[in-house]
């Protein structure tokens, strides 16, 4: 006996037809549900570039960077199957890295400021406010 794993298209090509098989969605939501879901998913379009899931089915390529956000849900499963992990741990662009670092620092400063104000620690609050101003100008020069 030989076990082979085939995709939908390949199995049809090899003559495997199983009209009795039905989708999991049908089982859970009633017959026809999977088709409904598929239809609505196919209509969904990327607000940035107008790319749809139907286009992805056709080409196997996405339309733009924002498509990764638009179709995040469906892509997650796909990416999980394709890659060893779904968390990037490699190189990151320095410019993006700086922006991320600055936004992290900004968030921390703002949190501390709120805390200082709540505690009526106005001296610390003033110093934090100055630091935030300084950081804001750094953020501007970074963009």
């Amino acid at each position, binding site marked *: 006996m030989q076990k082979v794993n085939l995709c939908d298209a390949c199995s049809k090509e090899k003559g495997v037809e199983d009209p009795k098989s039905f989708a999991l969605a049908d089982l859970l939501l009633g017959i026809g549900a999977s088709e409904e879901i598929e239809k609505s998913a196919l209509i969904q379009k990327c607000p940035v570039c107008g790319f749809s899931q139907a286009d992805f089915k056709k080409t196997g390529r996405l339309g733009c960077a924002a498509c990764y956000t638009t179709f995040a849900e469906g892509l997650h499963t796909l990416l999980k199957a394709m890659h060893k992990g779904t*968390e990037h741990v490699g190189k990151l662009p320095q410019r993006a890295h700086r922006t991320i670092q600055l936004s992290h620092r900004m968030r921390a400063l703002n949190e501390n400021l709120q805390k200082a104000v709540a505690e009526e620690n106005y001296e610390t609050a003033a110093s934090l406010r100055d630091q935030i101003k300084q950081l804001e100008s750094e953020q501007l020069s970074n963009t």
Partner: protein
Amino acid sequence: MMKFSSVMTTPGEWLRGEGPHHQIVISSRIRLARNLRNHAFPGWAKKAERIAILDLIRPRVEQLAEMQDSFAESLQDLSALERQVLVERHLISREHAAKGTGSAVVMNRRQTLSVMINEEDHLRMQSIRSGLQLKQAFKLVDKIDSALEEKLEFAYDQRLGYLTACPTNVGTGMRASAMLHLPGLVLSELINQVIQAVSKIGLAVRGLYGEGQPLPDFESDHARREGGRHHQSSEQGD
């Protein structure tokens, strides 16, 4: 600026058959895929946008210190024969050779570095070296990636990494490959066993001219898709 005639008369560095383990490893290659954040990927962008992307990227690539005295040309201005030469030398892909307006190639004089603009991704940068020199190839391509990143805003997601047209390339956008000449394994009919074994450790075997091409009898090529990690590739890419 280099002319195509001098590209023709000087074969690339990788064709010299030198470098470590050159009896087995014909060449080593590292490629990185990058895209601009605010533009549609080449396959989806309209012609005018592709031209705008090219105009944005090409001068910045040509200005790189590594690209001094480079050869740069739009695909539409290359003859069928010239494209064929570039494909044979692995300086452009077959897909890129089929492109026209809005796509270009820039390469250095030694032909160790080539950048395809508007292939499947906005940028496909690759370094190809003679023998087993994956680390050297990586160093060069990593350097120009960092230099370009200072001038261009790349599509990048904190969680997923670099974003690419095809989800298989997401992450580092890197592929490391070594082209191996393995006649002994073919003659002893062990090649298929080896191919099966290496696929289990995350290596893919491709034909001499890449994906979708039949494996020739005497040449095979290892490639590994990099999911998450930027490996300073060792011999097997992992």
